[in-house]
C-alpha cells in the first residue's frame, strides 16, 4: 500500500519553476528523517543524502517544479495578463481555477471576440475577482506565478490530479528513499526548473559527480482513443527509458535497470518518448559526463490538470528505484 496522504500533500504543494521553495519544504519534511544530510543548493535543488560504504555514488532525480502561469500585467479593471511557465497549452488553460502562493484564487478565461480555439497566451487572462488595478495589485504582483488547482480523484486503479508531472515521481522517490538499503552513497535530488528547459539537474549532477544518475519522471502512453502510437500502457509497469528528445540512454544503464527489475519480479516496459526531454539528458552531460537513465511512470493527459496514472505503475517505480539503489554493481565504462 502506498502512502496516500504523503502523495496528496506532495501533489498539492506550490512550486512552479523557479519558485519551488514551498514544495521543497514539503518534500524535505518527508525525506529528512531518513537522510544523513539534507540541503538545498544555490539553484534550489533539494538534495537528501544517505551515506553508504562502497565509495560509489548513485543519484536519483525527480523534478519538483511544476508548470503554471506568470503575471506580466494587471489592467485597470483588475484582470491579470499572464505568460506561460513551461509547456502550457493556452487552449486547455481556459476555464481553470488557479491559485497563487499567498492563497489568492482566480479563474482563467479568454478574450471572446475570437473563438476559444484561437486563444494564445496573449489573449488568455486571469480573473481574481477584483474591480480595479489597485485592488488586484494589493493581492498579486507582476512576476508572481500561479498554478492550476484541481482534485485528487481515485478511479479504480487510476488516480487523476494536477501535477502528476512530476510530483508522482517525487513521491515515488520519497517512498523509495525511505525504505532503500544501499551500499552506495545515495543522493535523492528533487530538482528545480525542469519544465523550463532542464535547468536544475545539470548543476546538481555537476556538484555531486555521481557514478550513475537515475531520473524518475512521467512519460506518455499510447492507450487512449485515437492517440499517437506508443507502446507504453498504463498498468503495465514502470518504464525503462531508451530515449527521449534530451537523451539516448546507454544500453548498459538500461540493462542495469532491467536486470534489477527482473531479479525482483518488478513489472517494467520499454519507453521511447518522441517529444519532450527530461533531467536524464541534463545530468548525462553535466561535468565530465554521467551514466544516466530514467524510470518513468506512464501518464495520460500530461500538462493538463487531470494527469492520470495507474497506482500499480507507481508502486512498480518505487520498487524499481529501490532495487536500483540496492544493486551492488553499478554500470561501469
Amino acid at each position, binding site marked *: 500500500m502506498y502512502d496516500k496522504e504523503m502523495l496528496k500533500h506532495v501533489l498539492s504543494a506550490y512550486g512552479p519553476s*523557479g519558485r519551488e521553495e514551498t514544495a521543497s519544504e514539503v518534500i524535505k519534511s518527508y525525506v529528512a528523517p531518513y537522510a544523513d544530510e539534507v540541503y538545498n543548493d544555490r539553484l534550489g535543488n533539494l538534495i537528501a543524502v544517505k551515506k553508504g560504504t562502497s565509495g560509489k555514488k548513485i543519484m536519483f532525480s525527480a523534478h519538483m517544479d511544476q508548470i503554471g502561469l506568470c503575471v506580466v500585467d494587471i*489592467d485597470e479593471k483588475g484582470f491579470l495578463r499572464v505568460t506561460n*511557465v513551461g509547456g502550457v497549452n493556452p487552449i486547455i488553460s481556459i476555464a481553470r481555477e488557479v491559485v497563487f502562493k499567498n492563497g489568492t484564487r482566480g479563474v482563467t478565461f479568454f478574450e471572446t471576440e475570437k473563438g476559444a480555439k484561437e486563444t494564445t497566451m496573449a489573449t488568455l487572462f486571469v480573473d481574481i475577482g477584483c474591480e480595479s488595478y489597485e485592488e488586484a495589485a494589493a493581492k498579486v504582483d507582476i512576476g508572481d506565478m500561479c498554478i492550476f488547482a484541481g482534485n485528487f480523484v481515485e478511479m479504480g486503479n487510476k488516480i487523476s490530479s494536477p501535477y502528476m508531472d512530476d510530483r508522482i515521481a517525487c513521491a515515488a522517490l520519497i517512498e523509495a528513499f525511505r525504505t532503500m538499503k544501499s551500499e552506495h552513497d545515495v543522493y535523492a535530488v528533487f530538482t528545480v526548473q525542469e519544465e523550463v528547459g532542464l535547468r536544475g539537474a545539470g548543476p546538481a549532477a555537476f*556538484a555531486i559527480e555521481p557514478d550513475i544518475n537515475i531520473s524518475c519522471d512521467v512519460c506518455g502512453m499510447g492507450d487512449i482513443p485515437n492517440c499517437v502510437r506508443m507502446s507504453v500502457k498504463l498498468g503495465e509497469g514502470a518504464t525503462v527509458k531508451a530515449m527521449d528528445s534530451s537523451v539516448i540512454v546507454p544500453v548498459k544503464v538500461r540493462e542495469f535497470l532491467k536486470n534489477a527489475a527482473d531479479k525482483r519480479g518488478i513489472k517494467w516496459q520499454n519507453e521511447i518518448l518522441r517529444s519532450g526531454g527530461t533531467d536524464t539528458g541534463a545530468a548525462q552531460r553535466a561535468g565530465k559526463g554521467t551514466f544516466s537513465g530514467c524510470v518513468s511512470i506512464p501518464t495520460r493527459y500530461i500538462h493538463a490538470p487531470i494527469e492520470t496514472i495507474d497506482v500499480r505503475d507507481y508502486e512498480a517505480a518505487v520498487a524499481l528505484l529501490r532495487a536500483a539503489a540496492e544493486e551492488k554493481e553499478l554500470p561501469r565504462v
Partner: protein
Amino acid sequence: MLGRLETLCNLSGPSGNEGPVRRYIREYAKQYADETWVDRMGNLYVHKKGSGPKVMVAAHMDEVGMLIWGAMDNGLLIYQQGGIDPRVVVSKRVLVGKNEIPGVIGAKAIHLQSQTDREHALDHTELFIDIGAKDKADVLKYVKPGEGAVFATRFERYGEDHVKSKALDDRVGCAIAMELLKNDYECDFYAAFTVQEEVGIRGAVVTAYNVKPDVALILEGTTANDMPGVESHQHVTRVGNGPALTFMDGGTIVPEKMFNALKKTAREENIPFQLRQGSRGRTDASEIHKSLAGCIAGGISVPCRYIHSPNSIASVSDIENAYKLADAFLRTKKFEEVL
C-alpha cells in the same frame, strides 16, 4: 559614460568579430583593473581583486550583424546573419570587414517588381551586399569570406533624453559595466565582456566556467514594444520608464531573492524602474546561472525601441538609472543578501 557609449556604438563588432570593441574596452579597463585577460573564445575579463563573494557583471560585446559567406560572379556578396529581420536591411548602408568597406544592401527596383514581388518581403537569401566591385575576383580583393559586416549608421543624440544608434544592444551594457569599473566594491569583482551572445549565448558559457561567480548581474539592452496599437501587456518595456528588471525570460527565471534585492535597491535609492513584462528572449544569464554547480543571476536592462535594427532608440535617463541601480546593488552589498 555617454561619450564612451558613442564610441562603443560606432565600433564594429558583429558576433565572432568583436575585436575592435574588445580592444577599446581593454585599453580603457587597464587603468582600473588588477588584471585583464582574453580567453580562447574572445571573451574579455576585467578583474578587480577583493575579498568576499565573487561577483561578475556581464555585458555582451557583439552586435547583430552579418557574416560574409561568399561572392557571386557579378561581385555581390552573400551573407549570413543572426537576429536581423530581413525587412529592415533593404537599402541600408553597411560596413564590411576589418577595413570597414562601405557597402549597400540593394533590392530590385520598384519598376521591375511584379505584384507578387511587392506583396512578399525579401528574405536574406535574396539580398546581397554591394561594395561596387566589378566581379568576383575584384570583390575578393577587398573582402574575404568569414569577415563580418555591420550597419553603417552612427550614434546620435535624439531629442532631449534619447540616443539613436545601431548596437545599443548591448553596448549600453558594456558602457555601464565600464563605468562600474571606476568604483571599488567590497567583493571579488569581475566584469566579463562576452562574445557571440546574439547567435545563441555562446561566450557566456565559458565566462562562468572561468570566473566561477557566486552572483552574476547581466547588463543588457532589451526590447521595448511601447508602440501605438499594442496593448499594455504586450509592451515588454517602455522607453523612459526606467531600467527594466527581469523576473523571467526565455532562458532564466530570476530567483525571488535576487529579483527582490534589485527592486529593494531601486526603492532605497529612489531610482525609477520598471519590470520587464515579457517572457521571451534570452540573455547571457541563461547560460551563466546553470553553469557548473549553479549561481545566482539577475539582470538590469535598458529598454530599446526598434532593437536589432540599424536605428534603435533608448533613453539617456534609463541608461543613467541602470548604471545607478547596478552601482547601488554592488555598493550596498546586496549580493550578500541573495546568497
